[in-house]
């Protein structure tokens, strides 16, 4: 990356928590800042897709290689493979998958939830900041819609955004009924914060581990529900289509334990596979968990589902840079929402910290690039997240409201109350994904997509707290829609869509050496998944 900057020791010596800070310079040209420094706009990082429903669209290079690749299995591999029949198959065991499974099961469907790792191994548990819902007296659904659309640079689908915002209060109600805890104001109302891109406080939270708390109750509810069967360590390696290859009627799962294939035949498949941080686009570190390899996008694209915004990813402005074994780990935006500032190595503020994430991220990269960053080594340059100043302004706040951060840094031997945290943007979220409608339905009949794998809501940039809202809101919507289909189920399950994809690849003269989905990143331990 960048080799200039001020060395860590020098910057630390220069740092003062009690200095007077001038307000950041006014942001005059947001677009040129984004165009120059945001990783989405890096030269050579984007290519055009040649085959499939999105042929001609821009896509990140690493993702394009996965979308236009050979499949893992052949029809011959399916001989003698046991078949399981269910009403709804949910692929993915994060928040969106659990919400979809629970809702479908509440509607009386037999649900199978298959997850690549364990139930709850997901990015949901890493969501720290909170969940957005327009519940304050001065807030409204309309303002939530406007903030979300503005934050996404008006690329988001207004219909989806409206559905998302309107679901907010009900989502909280549903979660509280499941037993989820939220922080409360002294009055007993839910406590809200204002975070990047919000026009008014709207972020409901549970300390700084909102997602973990959410997953706790979802996981309990899923394991206790008699209508839901859970298969852990069972990644999906291919979807199944009907004889015309135009409808999704199931999936082929494998097992990380015995490597055997299993066919699941179903009326509807709900993809809730999350994002692709582990592809390390443009060489960035990631905040994502080990299973975030973009499998859902690959499966959906191969069966013919339209995707959107494939060249737009969110880089979280404050990923930890130092100490190195925490690299990529997230420092919640909740800190900045609580008043924490960003300063460069010269001890200057350089951006309004509550700008949308893409703008803050671009500004940090600008500081690093122009020599005002803190240099750890040749590759790693970052900026300060000024936690000691926050501690001085609001003593005890860090300990009380950010216990997760405190315990993590304590293990690393850093005390954020006395030493600022060195941060650098980290690959965080996939803004686009499978195009869906308000029911979470993709363009392929029988295939639904919810959560991070879906696209169209966040435009080209997601606001904090909209992801947790989205997974429950759309998870429940897809759960309802997927059970509405009461036909007799598929007669035949085939790999017709795979042949179609192969034909297109061969005609376009594309290399077919890479086999996808990835399932686990190359560097994953043990090589359990080697075929």
């Amino acid at each position, binding site marked *: 990356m960048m080799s200039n900057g001020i060395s860590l020791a020098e910057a630390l010596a220069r740092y003062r928590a009690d200095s007077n800070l001038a307000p950041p310079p006014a942001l005059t040209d947001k677009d040129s800042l984004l165009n120059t420094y945001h990783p989405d706009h890096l030269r050579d990082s984007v290519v055009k897709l040649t085959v499939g429903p999105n042929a001609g669209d821009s896509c990140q290079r690493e993702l394009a290689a996965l979308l236009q690749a050979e499949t893992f299995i052949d*029809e011959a591999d*399916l001989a*003698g*493979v046991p078949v399981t029949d269910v009403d709804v198959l949910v692929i993915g065991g994060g928040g969106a998958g659990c919400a979809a499974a629970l809702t479908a099961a509440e509607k009386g469907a037999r649900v199978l939830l298959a997850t690549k790792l364990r139930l709850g191994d997901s990015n949901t548990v890493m969501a720290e900041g909170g969940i957005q819902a327009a519940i304050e007296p001065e807030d409204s659904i309309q303002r939530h819609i406007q903030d979300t659309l503005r934050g996404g640079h008006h690329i988001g689908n207004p219909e989806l955004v409206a559905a998302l915002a309107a679901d907010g209060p009900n989502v909280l109600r549903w979660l509280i009924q499941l037993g989820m805890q939220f922080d409360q104001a002294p009055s007993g109302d839910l406590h809200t914060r204002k975070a990047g891109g919000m026009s008014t406080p709207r972020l409901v939270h549970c300390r700084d581990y909102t997602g973990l708390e959410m997953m706790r109750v979802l996981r309990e509810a899923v394991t206790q529900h008699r209508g839901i069967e859970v298969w852990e360590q069972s990644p999906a390696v291919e979807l199944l289509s009907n*004889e015309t*290859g135009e409808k999704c009627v199931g999936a082929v799962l494998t097992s990380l334990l015995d490597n055997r294939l299993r066919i699941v035949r179903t009326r509807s498949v709900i993809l809730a596979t999350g994002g692709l941080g582990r592809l390390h686009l443009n060489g960035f570190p990631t905040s994502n968990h080990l299973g975030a390899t973009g499998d859902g996008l690959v499966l959906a694209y191969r069966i013919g589902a339209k995707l959107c915004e494939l060249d737009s990813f969110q880089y979280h402005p404050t990923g930890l840079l130092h100490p190195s074994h925490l690299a990529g780990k997230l420092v919640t935006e909740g800190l900045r929402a609580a008043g924490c500032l960003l300063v460069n190595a010269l001890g200057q503020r350089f951006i309004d910290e509550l700008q949308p994430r893409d703008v803050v991220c671009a500004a940090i990269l600008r500081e690093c690039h122009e020599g005002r960053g803190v240099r750890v080594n040749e590759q790693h340059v970052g900026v300060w997240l000024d936690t000691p100043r926050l501690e001085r302004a609001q003593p005890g706040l860090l300990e009380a409201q950010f216990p997760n951060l405190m315990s993590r840094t304590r293990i690393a031997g850093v005390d954020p109350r006395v030493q600022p945290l060195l941060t650098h943007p980290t690959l965080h979220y996939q803004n686009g994904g499978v195009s869906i409608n308000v029911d979470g339905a993709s363009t392929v009949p029988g295939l639904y997509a919810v959560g991070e794998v879906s696209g169209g809501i966040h435009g080209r940039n997601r606001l904090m707290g909209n992801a947790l809202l989205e997974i429950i809101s759309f998870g429940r919507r897809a759960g309802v829609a997927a059970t509405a289909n009461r036909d007799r189920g598929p007669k035949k399950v085939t790999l017709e869509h795979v*042949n179609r994809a192969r034909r297109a690849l*061969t005609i376009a003269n594309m290399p*077919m050496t890479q086999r996808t989905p990835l399932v686990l990143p190359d560097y994953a331990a043990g090589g359990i998944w080697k075929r």
Partner: protein
Amino acid sequence: METLKTQACELNIPPLETPQVLLHPDQRVGANMARWRESGGGVALTLAAQDLPAVHAAIREADLRGLGGSGFPVWRKWESAINELPKPDKYLVVNGNEDEPGTFKDRLLLEETPHQIIEGAVIAALVIGANRIVFYTNPDIKRSLAAMRSALEQWKASDLLTLASTTLGKPLEMELCPGSGHYIGGEETAAMAWIEGGFPFPRGKPPYPAQAGVHGCPTVINNVETVAHVSHIVKNGAAWFKSLGKNSGSGTKLYSLSGDVLHPGVFELPMGTSLRELIFVHGGGLLSGKPLKAVFTGGPSSNMLTPVDLDVALDFESVRARGSSLGTGAMIVVSEGTGIVKRVAEYMRFFAHSSCGQCPPCKTGTATMSRLLDKIDTGRGTETDLATLRNLCNMLPGSGRCHLVNGAVQLLDSAFRHFPDEFRQALR
């Protein structure tokens, strides 16, 4: 299977530098009679009307075969009908039922070249003295039905039909009869039963249709592709037709190529083109460059061909010599990586579903074979199931009135012969 058909039609890439007779652009005018006549349509009928016995001789000389699958010489079928007296009518049935997996040539002819088919049928009717022509087509292919309906309307108002009736000495009546939508409805005696108004149950032979067919009248049943060739033979002569073929074949044949090839579609090639040329030159080779595993021929009721048969000439005799049959010219190509058990189970389900149910061995036999294959395919099979299937293969052939059960057994039997290991591996 519907996919294979539709996809193939969409992706159809006309072969280069091969003789095009039936699929010549001049013929592919749809139901537009004026355009068809501008490019020489109707000339053959005028010629034929002047000397009908000569037409019969030319067909014999040209060695035109029944292209619906039998490969039976057309002249012989006609001759036995010529020798029969009308009682009081004589029928010509043009069979376009075409409902087997992997075959999609007749629908293309019916949709794009209806006039060529009607002209051929009228000439054939004149030669055999039939006063009723029934176009029996697949009811599910709406576009070919619409084209035929419109073309027949235009014929009824045209001078060509008047000429035909005058030549015949009585009114020539043409009728479009959508079939029942059953695969078995394409069998010739089943087709007759449907035209008479009953369920399309096949019946035993004899009596042959030429003696007692539709309503007991002498009847000739020819495939759509067969009658489409007639006018061209009349116009250009038998020698020309023979010269179109390769090896021992004569004329051209429509091959329906589908499965794991790069360019599936309908290809009009010289009869006797090699399987290798069809797959690798016209079909563009196999998907992902995988090796060939097998080819299901003729709407898969026959022995499959394997890579050792790549150089077989695709005409009736050469394919028969390999223990298989050309059938309708449908070639479903599968590459390495395709599961034979799954494929066979799929086709067996088709046969079990298509059995009309009147002959118990066929009704229960195909259903049992299908059930056992499904069981094996889904990982629940046992050695006993395999033994049962092998037993059925020995017991069932010849036990039905029509050919359905024999075809089903042949398919399974050849799968056992060529890929015994795959069945064993599927037992878990």
